[in-house]
Each structure stands twice: as structure tokens, then as C-alpha cells.
């Protein structure tokens, strides 16, 4: 196992200070390793996730070589040639587990933002104290964007939040964590080959959730109640002005409708499986409140906005992969983790084999199935084996 940094590198170095998982502690399950602390319904801090992954590395005895940056993987004979800072390897098979979120995505028009406005990605952001006083434009309203918008607003700054398509969820539903429902009702077990539009499922933004002791909901209604101002999707920066889409109401209703359908599925599952007794009564939530008049543009030279935080998603980086298996969008071409090149595999990507693959606890069954293919197909074909 080659790791360019340390064990749990992404958790140590690529998250902000107040970061907590949005999945509850009991859901952080790795093969033979689970949360054993006093608060199964709580949410791990960055230090806790790091310790959890380190604990797993120690317990599983994984042969990790840290500080081994892979700079190239090439096809060579019936296997691969792997180049690292510390030397070369030949192998029959490679499992790519380099993560789905190596680089923050920033839209091209970031280049047109006036120099007087500071720009940060979630990889640069540590906490509010690092920002100049004054207004902040947070672009993107998925998990990262809503969490940073709330924290920045609490620091006393005026916050404008640019909202595109998003996934709205309540933190708890009928008295249980909403992710308990995703897990128990089988939504997360849906397999990649059962999903109608897999490309879309794999690109689905993260849900508007935050892990706090109070288990509070952090949807757009919560944010507007805190004084965060929602505007439409950032469509362009032109002549020093940020231009926002006028389609805000529609992204609100798309998210409200989708949430309602999901809650309907939960209710139907509870009814059909005789679980109504263990949970509270069905709930429905107020529609997302649209501002009377959302702003369509903001003058970025006027001093109102001092900082832009790009919470516009992440992408994997395959710059080191010299095998033609990456599509024009920079995504790996694979069928449930079996990459389109003999002996090449992937793990740890969104909806790799199931909806739960996107999360830490998705790895157990994915790894078993992918490694099963590796053992029975790739290694079985070894000449003379």
C-alpha cells in the first residue's frame, strides 16, 4: 500500500478545523473495526476520524508505505510499472484507492474575480479567523458550503450563499438520524447496476447535513433564519460583477420535492416492515422559503464582499495515471470498480458499487467484491498459476 503522505492523510490535511463527520459514529464501520466510544449517535471530529483510521491501520496490520508518492502507473507486459518517489515496482494488478476528492473544483470565471477579493477553497480554509473582516460569498450549498456559511455567519460576517442544485435533508426524521433511515431502509444498498441514471447518481452533491451535538438541521431555511442571504447559482463574473441565476425558486422546489419523495419512501418502508412502533410519527417540513427578491448580481469591486469561498465540489486527480482509462471529464471509466484495463481496479469512489460506496462504511462490501474479482479473474489468468 503506497501512501504519499501519512495514514488518514486526507483527514489530517484537507479539512477545516471545526470539521466533523456528517455520518453518526455508529456508522463509521470498517472491516472488523467500529466505533466503541460512549456516544454512538455523535459525530467524529477530525482528530477522532484520524485516530479511528489509524486504529484500523494498526489493527489490520495493513502494509502501508508512507511518504510514497506514486508519480506514474503504466501498462507493462501483462501488468503495471509503478513509479514512486522512492523507486519502481512491477505488479500484476493495481487497486486505485487514491480518493475521489483530491482537488477542489473552482469554476473558470474565478479568474475574472477582482484582485481585491480574497479567494479560498475548502483546502485553504481553516476557520473564520483567517478571513478579512467583512462580507463573504460562499459559492455552493452542499455539505461543505452550508457548513462553512453557517460558521462564517456565526463569526459575525455578512454571508451570501450562492445556491445551485442541492440535496436537502433534515438531520433527524421521526426521532432518528436521517442517515439511520438511509441505512436501515435499504436506500444505500441500491446497487450501481440497478440505478437508472448512474452518471447522475455518481455526481450527486453531498447532502446539506452537519454533525453537531444538538443534531440540528442545516437546510436553507435554517441558514436564512441565521441571516445568510441565498442567491442563485453563480453563472458568471463579468466586469467585476458576480451574476447569479434567476432560477433559485426552481432549485428550491426540486430539492423540496426530492426530499418529500425520500421521506415517503422511508414511511412506506417503516409501514411495510412493521417499524412504525419504534419511531416517531411521520413529519413533513416547510418548503424552502424563497427570498422575496433574490439578488441577481453583486458588485465585487464595491467592498461588500471581501472573500469568496469556493465550495463547488472536489474532483479526483489522475495526473499520475498513464493508462487511458480516464474520460474527458477526468473521471475513471470503471464498472463497479473494475477498470477498463486488465488487472486495474478502483475503490473509494462515489456509488462505486452501491449508494453507500460514497461513505466510509461503504468500503467493506465494495472491497470484498472488487478483491474477489481481482483474485478470481486477474490472478487466475496468471500464466502458469
Amino acid at each position, binding site marked *: 500500500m503506497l501512501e504519499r503522505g501519512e495514514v488518514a492523510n486526507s483527514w489530517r490535511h484537507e479539512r477545516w478545523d471545526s470539521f466533523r463527520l456528517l455520518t453518526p459514529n455508529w456508522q463509521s464501520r470498517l472491516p472488523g473495526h467500529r466505533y466503541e466510544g460512549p456516544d454512538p449517535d455523535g459525530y467524529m471530529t477530525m482528530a477522532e476520524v484520524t485516530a479511528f483510521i489509524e486504529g484500523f491501520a494498526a489493527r489490520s496490520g495493513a502494509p502501508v508505505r508512507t511518504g510514497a508518492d506514486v508519480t506514474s502507473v503504466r501498462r507493462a507486459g501483462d501488468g503495471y510499472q509503478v513509479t514512486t518517489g522512492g523507486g519502481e515496482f512491477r505488479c500484476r494488478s493495481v487497486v486505485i484507492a487514491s480518493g475521489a476528492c483530491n482537488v477542489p473544483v473552482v469554476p473558470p470565471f474565478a479568474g475574472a474575480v477582482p484582485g481585491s477579493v480574497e479567494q479560498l477553497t475548502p483546502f485553504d480554509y481553516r476557520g473564520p479567523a483567517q478571513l478579512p473582516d467583512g462580507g463573504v460569498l460562499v459559492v455552493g450549498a452542499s455539505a461543505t458550503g452550508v457548513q462553512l456559511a453557517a460558521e462564517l455567519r456565526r463569526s459575525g460576517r455578512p454571508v451570501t450563499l450562492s445556491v445551485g*442544485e442541492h440535496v436537502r435533508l433534515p438531520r433527524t426524521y421521526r426521532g432518528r438520524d436521517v442517515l439511520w433511515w438511509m441505512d436501515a431502509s435499504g436506500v444505500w444498498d441500491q446497487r450501481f447496476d440497478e440505478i437508472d441514471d448512474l452518471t447522475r447518481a455518481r455526481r450527486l452533491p453531498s447532502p446539506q447535513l452537519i454533525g453537531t451535538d444538538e443534531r440540528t438541521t442545516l437546510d436553507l431555511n435554517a441558514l436564512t433564519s441565521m441571516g445568510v442571504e441565498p442567491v*442563485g*447559482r453563480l*453563472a*458568471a463574473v*463579468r466586469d467585476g460583477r458576480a*451574476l447569479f*441565476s*434567476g*432560477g433559485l425558486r*426552481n432549485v428550491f*422546489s*426540486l430539492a423540496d*420535492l426530492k426530499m*418529500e*419523495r425520500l421521506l415517503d419512501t422511508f414511511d412506506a418502508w417503516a409501514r411495510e416492515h412493521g417499524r412504525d412502533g419504534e419511531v416517531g410519527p411521520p413529519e413533513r417540513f416547510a418548503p424552502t422559503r424563497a427570498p422575496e*427578491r433574490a439578488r441577481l448580481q453583486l458588485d465585487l469591486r464595491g467592498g461588500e464582499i471581501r472573500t469568496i469561498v469556493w465550495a463547488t465540489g472536489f474532483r479526483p486527480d489522475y495526473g499520475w495515471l498513464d493508462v487511458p482509462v480516464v474520460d474527458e471529464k477526468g473521471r475513471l471509466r470503471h464498472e463497479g470498480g473494475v477498470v477498463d484495463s486488465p488487472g486495474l481496479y478502483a475503490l473509494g469512489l462515489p456509488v462505486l458499487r452501491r449508494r453507500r460506496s460514497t461513505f466510509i462504511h461503504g468500503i467493506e462490501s465494495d472491497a470484498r467484491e472488487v478483491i474477489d474479482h481481482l483474485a478470481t479473474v486477474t490472478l487466475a489468468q496468471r500464466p502458469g498459476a
Partner: protein
Amino acid sequence: MTTVANGVNVQALLDAREALKGAPEAAQFVWRASSKWQDGVHSTTRVKEFFGLGQEQEHKSEAVFDADHPEVFAAQDNGITPIEYLLIGLASCLTAGVASVAQNRGIQLRSVEAALEGKHDIRGILGVDSDVRNGFNDIKVTFTIDADASRQDIEALVAQSQKRSAVFDALTNPTDVTVEVA
């Protein structure tokens, strides 16, 4: 398969979507219109040819549109106001979207009607107040749909049709427009 008949050939659209995935060049369309000044604020615009699927194409017949302004603008009212054409584009685009999405989702439509209202403060175009914009301040579309579906499903149709609408996008997002003298 579905027995729903909304008159939309969804299979052809889905096939096109598949085919164009590997052929982005073929997906490049150019829509054209040519206009001619008549008199006063009256002009006539004709639409016939367009480019797409890698070659020149044309409509079955040429369409001719007169635009003018109403008498309250001291004009002749030989045709509707240019900004009203935007409402036509939006209404027909969203309606086409509703029909296509309904077909794809197996929802039988019986009637789809939309009422559109575009609020326009003409102090902008008259230069009375530079804080007033020239275009619509807001547009409201109200659909009345009779279909074999729940209210929730109908709302989802309308939401999805906006999500995939060319004209909704063109009106809600900025577009680069170049106007020059030949």
C-alpha cells in the same frame, strides 16, 4: 413499455442523447433569424434555416413574425412587443418539457395550460431612472395541468421541465451577446 400517448417520441430523444454522448460536434446547433425594419418601430423577422447535426437544415416552412408596439406607446401595433416574444419562447419551451418528461415518466396528460406574466417597469427603457433595469423584473408562469398523476408528480414534471429548458436557462442565466455592424 409505457402505454402513455402524449405524442412525444421519447425514444428518439433518448437515442439522440446516447448518440450525441460520443459526438459533441453533431450536437452543435445554430439557430438563426433575420429581421428587416419596416417603418416606425415595426419590424418583420423571418425564421427558416438552421444548422445542426453537422449540416444545414430547414423548417418545413418559413415563419414570419411582426413586432411592433401598442398604441399606448404611440405606435401602430402591427404586431406584439419584442419582449412578449420572450414569453412565447418560455411558455412553449416549458410546455414541450412538461410533455416530454411526462411521456418519459409514463404520465398521461389530458391538458396543459400555462398563463404567463412578465412584470416590466418601462422607466428603464425610457431612461427615467437608471436604477430600473430594462428587462423584466420578474416572470410568473402558472401551469394548470390535468393528468393521471398526483399533485406531487405534476409539480415534479414542472420542476424538471425548467431544469432542462433552453429558454428558462437563457432567461435566468447571463448569456454573452455580441451585436455588431456588418
